[in-house]
């Protein structure tokens, strides 16, 4: 009797530990939604610096950024002087560009959606489809790995049959603890890896952890990358509707 009593708790404890260690793999869609929430929340307002690096030059743009997840965003460049006042407005899959020097608002035609945004390694399409990962793809969790020092799930996202996406597949390494992405891999329709985004420098931003440094790198080109560094970021504030208008693009500050 004595032996039994001592061993039962040990057995029970052992059972609990084993159960916890083999933590159940999360549902793919669930994980994708959590990741989207972690990165974008309901709204964002922030300031960031984007550095574009090429073999021949390197340029850094400072910008202000407003976004309502999933389908509205507004970016205004604040520096350097040549681009100051240039803005991008995105509503749904439509995008407008404004350049103060020519005083013209230009709607970006579909034929140019795959062109770089502001010369970076992000395309116009990338900006327009930020949240499409949840809506346009089906998801499975394919495994786990330690990525950039964090225990992560690998999320595989395959486009739905009629989804208007350019990628053949995406893979995301998301943190087990809070679904924050550490790495995102973009594959073309032939299954070749084309771009990789690394999410680093995780700091506290408001009520959550957030990667303050994003770096996008094309796989097959040397010495080219784009780095986004968030200087300030707040989540889930109410943003007035007038921000996401063409009039706002033209407003000089």
């Amino acid at each position, binding site marked *: 009797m004595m032996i039994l009593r001592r061993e039962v708790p040990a057995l029970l404890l052992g059972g609990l530990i084993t159960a916890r260690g083999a933590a159940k793999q999360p549902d793919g869609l669930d994980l994708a939604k959590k990741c989207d929430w972690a990165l974008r929340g309901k709204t964002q307002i922030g300031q960031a610096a984007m550095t*574009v690096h*090429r073999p*021949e*030059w*390197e*340029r850094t743009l400072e910008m202000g950024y407003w976004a309502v997840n999933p389908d509205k965003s507004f970016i205004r460049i604040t520096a*350097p002087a*040549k*681009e100051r006042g*240039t803005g991008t407005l995105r509503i749904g899959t439509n995008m407008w*560009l404004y*350049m103060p*020097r*020519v*005083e*013209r608002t*230009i*709607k*970006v*035609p579909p*034929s*140019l959606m795959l*062109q*770089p945004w*502001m*010369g970076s390694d992000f395309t116009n399409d990338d900006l327009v489809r930020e949240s499409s990962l949840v809506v346009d793809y089906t998801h499975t969790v394919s495994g786990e790995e330690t990525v950039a020092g964090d225990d992560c799930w690998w999320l595989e996202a395959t486009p739905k049959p009629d989804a208007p996406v350019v990628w053949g597949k995406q893979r995301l390494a998301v943190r087990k603890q809070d679904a924050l992405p550490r790495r995102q891999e973009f594959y073309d329709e032939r299954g070749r890896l084309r771009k990789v985004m690394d999410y680093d420098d995780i700091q506290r931003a408001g009520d959550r952890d957030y990667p303050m440094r994003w770096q996008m790198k094309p796989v097959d080109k040397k010495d080219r990358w784009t780095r986004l560094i968030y200087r300030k970021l707040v989540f889930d504030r109410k943003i007035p509707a007038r921000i996401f208008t063409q009039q706002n693009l033209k407003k000089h500050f």
Partner: protein
Amino acid sequence: MLFLAMAWRNVWRHRRRSVLTVAAISLGLAFNIFMRGLGDGFHEQMVDNSVQSHIGHIQIHRAGYHDDPAITKTLPDPAAVRQAIEALPNLRGFSFRVLGDGLASSAENSAGVGVVGVTPDEESRVTTVHRAVVEGEYLDPGQHKPALIGARLAKLLQLSLGDSLVVLVQAADGSMGGEKYKITGIFRSGSPDLDRGMVYLLLRDAQSLFALEGRYTEATLLLNNSSGVAAAQAALTAHLAGDGVEVLPWYVVEPYIQQFIELDDAFFYVIVLILFIVISVGILNTILMSVFERVREFGVMMSLGMKPRQVIRLVVLEAALLAVVGILIGGAIGSAFTLYYASAGMDLASWAEGAAAIGMTSTVAYPKLTALNLGLSSLAVLFVVMLVSLYPAVHAARLRPVEAIRHV
């Protein structure tokens, strides 16, 4: 000489039959010569059209530009390039340009375009855009930020003369470039690519837009005729060796033209082959019949001591004489037609749509007669006829004299 006379007279033993055969040969050859001439003329026009609409005979860029174009790739030593070009013997003109991609926009619409910055009078000695202006005027360096655009682009953007055209680009230093230009001219070249996709600016304006002060993307040049391209390319390559440039002839820049020509030629040869086969069957029949009619004669010849290979030579000689008559007549007819249309021109209006698709701006074709065309076609006919005659000739040579003499 006796055998030549014999062969000649043998040919005309059955006058009507031989006349018909000669007619078939000469018509076949005349057709061949004219069609080849039409093809050659058409191809030459295609090349000239294409070359003079934008690409020139030869283009020089920084090495690696053609495979991977980028606004940052500019000519490393433009002065050396200019010197090399000016040394060419049959030069008609050259133009130093800035080229890049941009977004052209109006209040109504925007479109991706190719921006071309040129020095207007240099450019007018290379391309024919200046002659295609339908509204307003060609670029004028005295104007402030003028733009020359194609009629299709104007329509797409709903712009007219005097309106503002905004062009946004990514400049060579990575910054976003954007400028407003005034539309001072609208052109219609007939080429859909140019009319819809090109915006011509003054060189200095393009250099400033792309942050390329003092630099050039390419030098393009036009020779007096396209036959000198290979030599000019070799001369330039030698002159500029080691200068980090690539010297590209038009058929590397726009291979589809050459590919089209080769495809067209291939089709032509297939048609000619079929034609030759058809004519050959007729000729074979004629010669075979003439051999069968002379079995006894061949028997006599070989009895008298003519060797089989001499019999073959006689029959083939007869066929060759037939062919020569046909060639002379057919060559004359074919040449006459070709030369006539070479100066009068042949209107191919019914194929106008296809012509526009491959960059032809006019529907009038001018066939071209070359000695090579004439000579090769004639030789081909002669060769085929003599080849075909071998079968009946060998048959005659294999006759046994003893049996042949008894032939009815």
